[in-house]
């Protein structure tokens, strides 16, 4: 079978069955996650994208990406470009500096030059989506900031190696900076730029 044909076949699957209602439900979940940093959420949709890590990443792409939001993905297979084009209208970019959404797989590294927004338009920044192994164990953080009643604890297994340094540098840029969404299979935890990380003892 010619390669273009198999790319097309792969791109037809893995989207929402009922795009209008599933996108609405997924958005509310993402909004709740962003409004309450550190809170854990679980996506329902049985979706999958070639090259994205799991249902949570695919759900986020289907809910938020379109022709206005170039997507960067580490080690993106050609099939991902076809999948995004078919389901969302978004195009893949090889340049992180052009990305509105950046997807990083488990064990991947955070690219250096994602858009951080400007002082006058800090919203013109990328959303960074990172797949981790899971929540509830691993590296422990205490979180504080808008959306958090006092503080809350989060444990993450499988963060990128330089994540702590990245977070500190990102918070120092506020109101500029990246908004991070951690995914683990179906699970989602949002860490917007406004969230403070306090390394917790024990």
């Amino acid at each position, binding site marked *: 079978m010619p390669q273009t044909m198999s790319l097309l076949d792969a791109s037809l699957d893995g989207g929402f069955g009922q795009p209008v209602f599933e996108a609405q439900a997924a958005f509310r979940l993402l909004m709740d996650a962003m409004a309450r940093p550190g809170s854990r959420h679980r996506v329902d949709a049985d979706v999958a994208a070639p090259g994205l890590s799991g249902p949570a990443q695919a759900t986020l792409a289907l809910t*938020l990406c379109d022709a206005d*939001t170039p997507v960067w993905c580490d080690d993106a297979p050609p099939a991902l470009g076809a999948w995004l084009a078919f389901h969302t209208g978004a195009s893949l970019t090889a340049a992180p500096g052009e990305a509105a959404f950046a997807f990083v797989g488990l064990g991947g590294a955070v690219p250096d030059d994602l858009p951080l927004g400007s*002082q006058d338009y800090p919203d013109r920044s990328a959303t960074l989506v990172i797949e981790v192994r899971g929540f509830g164990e691993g590296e422990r953080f205490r979180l504080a900031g808008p*959306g958090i009643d006092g503080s809350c604890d989060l444990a993450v297994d499988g963060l990128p190696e330089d994540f702590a340094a990245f977070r500190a540098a990102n918070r120092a840029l506020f109101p500029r900076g990246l*908004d991070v969404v951690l995914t683990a299979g179906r699970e989602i935890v949002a860490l917007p*730029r406004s969230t403070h990380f306090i390394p917790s003892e024990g």
Partner: protein
Amino acid sequence: MNAATYNFAYLDEQTKRMIRRAILKALAIPGYQVPFAAREMPMPYGWGTGGVQVTAAVIGPGDVLKVIDQGADDTTNAVSIRAFFRKVAGVATTTHTAEATVIQTRHRIPEYPLKEGQILVYQVPIPEPLRFLEPRETETRVMHGLEDYGLMHVKLYEDIAHHGRIATAYAYPVKVAGRYVMDPSPIPKFDNPKMTMSPALQLFGAGREKRIYAVPPYTEVKSLDFEDHPFEVQTFNEPCALCGARNVYLDEVVLDDRGGRMFVCSDTDNCESRRTGTGAQS
């Protein structure tokens, strides 16, 4: 010909996605005004097209919608917006604050305390709190960017010099999460304290000026003031003439042409619930 020719919740999916992305940015940068490409809505701007677009982008079939206008559920504006969403989204509607999952409001915050999971959508006519000081958008952007709010403090202090107090009674400016000065929309300053550390999510939509901003739950919202002139809310000497409530916001109602008048609850649902003993009430 019964087939709907519009999408669920009226807006097309691309517009919803654009508004949804703006809402997520707004939540990540509390109090910052995110520009968005507002759409024409089948109602005039004064009717809260910004709030309607935000509501349309978030609402789902399982939501229960309440709409208030100056505290009342039964004005033409509130009734029309409720009917609009019943038709285009098939959602249930209510007048009871405690039953609503999404509350769209023009110029009031309900008296009954909001809870976690509720979304309060404000209709905003003028989103820029610095606009009356500086008409140029490029300049107000820079002032927000630099956190340069000196002019705003000078203006408020001039108020004190002239009136012995800060004269602003509506749209009283607030600082969100210690960073952005924000216009809370023309709610009475009586309502300002309800914004801070609220368990509910607060979204603001300005249709004509194409801005969305947000206050996440449990976020500090501080009314601007001075140490020697602390922020104070309006107080009322008498209780509501209908339900006897104190510590609620009252409207003055003229009874006759001989100067007869009384003060009654602005929040009509809260007042009615208190009188009939139904529903949740504050």
